């Protein structure tokens, strides 16, 4: 007879509202459910009531960390329907900001991983370095997090030589720091003890569950939207798709750290090769989009992000659909927790959960019932059962 342990919706392992319901026997997890319905905001419906331009700013607020990915995806979609293409310089600038966002997202994640395994000094160090990236973001876009940098037809601000110099020197410094963190993850016995062979997701399983982003790449799947379906100037800027075959939480950490180094190279290369020219094509604030539909995908820090847009010719979207990377990876997460063929210990749950880099406000879409379809308890039920 197992015992059910609710983790969340408010729990120190994750600041966002999510309920992990674990069935445990002794120290082992035998079943798991996820309920992420606490922060659903109805953004897809709201978009149908906003103009295309207002929608851009709403889409950015789907997720703070991935705001650049969402606004890039949205503007690509709208530009495609309008038949407008952003100038090349704007595409380079979008790429620079997108990669800066990836760096700060991955560093945030690395800090959280350190926090989850109780390595607080690493958490502090990584967050200190991440601040430098956010400072660059603020200088470049005007905001640390919700950047509002992308606009339909281009970007909002240009980069000047003085700022370009600061970006280069900061990233150069950061490169050295990140290499240190990479060495640490590779060699530190306590990091290895907590992450190696934890949260196993074999390649075939990752393929079957349609995992995306670093989760898929740490299971050996060479899938990256930037390489497979280039949407900015990715065919002009060289980069490597980092993959590992370790299929565990350690691999996911290594993939992300390597990707930070790749992103730094991509930004440096972009700054070297950015052409001069205009940064946006002016589009009026209220515009009608010709009837039609389209899809856009970008590689968000957490993986493939997908948007679908349908226009009926008016100034508002007829339907707008978003599929965020965490939603795609949630199936893999539940599978990792309740796989029957390997022991999964309660103490490893935070690391496994953290290893997919979950973003609940992005997702806010799904919970998973266990195989036998038993009831999932909510907070009220828990309160009631305590009173009994």
């Amino acid at each position, binding site marked *: 007879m197992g015992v059910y342990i609710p983790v969340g919706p408010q729990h120190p392992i994750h600041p966002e509202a999510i309920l992990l319901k674990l069935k445990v026997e002794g120290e082992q997890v035998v079943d798991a459910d996820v309920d992420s*319905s606490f922060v659903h905001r109805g953004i897809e419906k709201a978009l149908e009531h906003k103009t295309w331009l207002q929608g851009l700013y709403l889409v950015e607020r789907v997720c703070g960390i991935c705001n650049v990915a969402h606004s890039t995806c949205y503007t690509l979609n709208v530009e495609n329907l309008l038949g407008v293409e952003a100038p090349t310089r704007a595409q380079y600038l979008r790429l620079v900001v997108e990669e800066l966002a990836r760096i700060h997202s991955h560093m945030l994640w690395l800090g959280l991983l350190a926090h989850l395994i109780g390595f607080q000094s690493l958490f502090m160090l990584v967050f200190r370095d991440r601040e430098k990236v956010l400072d660059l973001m603020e200088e470049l876009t005007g905001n640390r997090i919700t950047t509002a940098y992308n606009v339909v037809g281009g970007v909002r601000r240009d980069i000047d030589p003085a700022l370009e110099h600061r970006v280069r020197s900061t990233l150069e410094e950061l490169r050295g720091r990140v290499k240190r963190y990479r060495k640490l993850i590779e060699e530190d016995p306590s990091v290895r003890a907590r992450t190696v062979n934890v949260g196993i997701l074999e390649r075939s399983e990752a393929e079957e569950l349609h995992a995306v982003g670093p989760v898929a790449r740490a299971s050996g799947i060479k899938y990256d939207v930037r390489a497979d379906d280039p949407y900015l100037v990715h065919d002009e800027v060289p980069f490597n798709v980092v993959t590992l075959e370790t299929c565990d939480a350690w691999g996911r950490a290594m993939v992300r750290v390597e990707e930070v180094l790749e992103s730094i190279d991509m930004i440096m290369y972009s700054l070297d090769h950015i052409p001069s020219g205009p940064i946006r094509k002016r589009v009026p604030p209220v515009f009608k989009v010709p009837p039609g539909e389209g899809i856009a995908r970008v590689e968000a820090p957490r993986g493939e992000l997908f948007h679908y847009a349908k226009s009926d010719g008016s100034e508002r979207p007829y*339907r707008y659909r978003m599929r965020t990377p965490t939603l795609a990876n949630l199936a893999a997460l539940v599978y990792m927790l309740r796989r029957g063929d390997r022991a999964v210990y309660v103490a490893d749950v935070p690391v496994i959960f953290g290893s997919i880099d979950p973003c609940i406000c992005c997702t806010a879409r799904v919970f*998973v019932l266990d195989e036998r*379809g038993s009831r999932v308890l909510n907070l009220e039920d828990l309160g009631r059962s305590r009173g009994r």
Partner: protein
Amino acid sequence: MDEERVVEELKARLGAAILEVKVPQRRRVFITVDREHYRAALEVLREAGFDHLVAITGIDTGDHFEVIAHVGRTLVVSVRAVVPRSDARIPSLIDLYKGAEFYERETWEMLGIVFEGNPRLTRTFLPENWPENVYPLRKDYEGG
């Protein structure tokens, strides 16, 4: 596989069941089939190597529903099936694409389209006090 070959392959296998083909841009193919050939179209694609289900989109067009399954990594083929409003059902893809489970549940909850064969069509992310048979992404739902 490029756009043309995918369209050829689908036409060869499904023939007149394909109601419409659109290639709006590079690496994007939209095909429309009737509900009876929705699974058949995806079986053809699955065999042709489209093993990644990107998402499932549901749309309320006013007089009918549309379900679109987007598959593929480099080239994305979107298979659209037309579902009548009076009989909102469509076969599930869960045995072809395991990850379809969540996307179908979301579409069911938001639009009330039943995916036959999906074993877990249960309330997922709308609040618990949400009334039965009210589907927020339907066009006749105005909400508050």
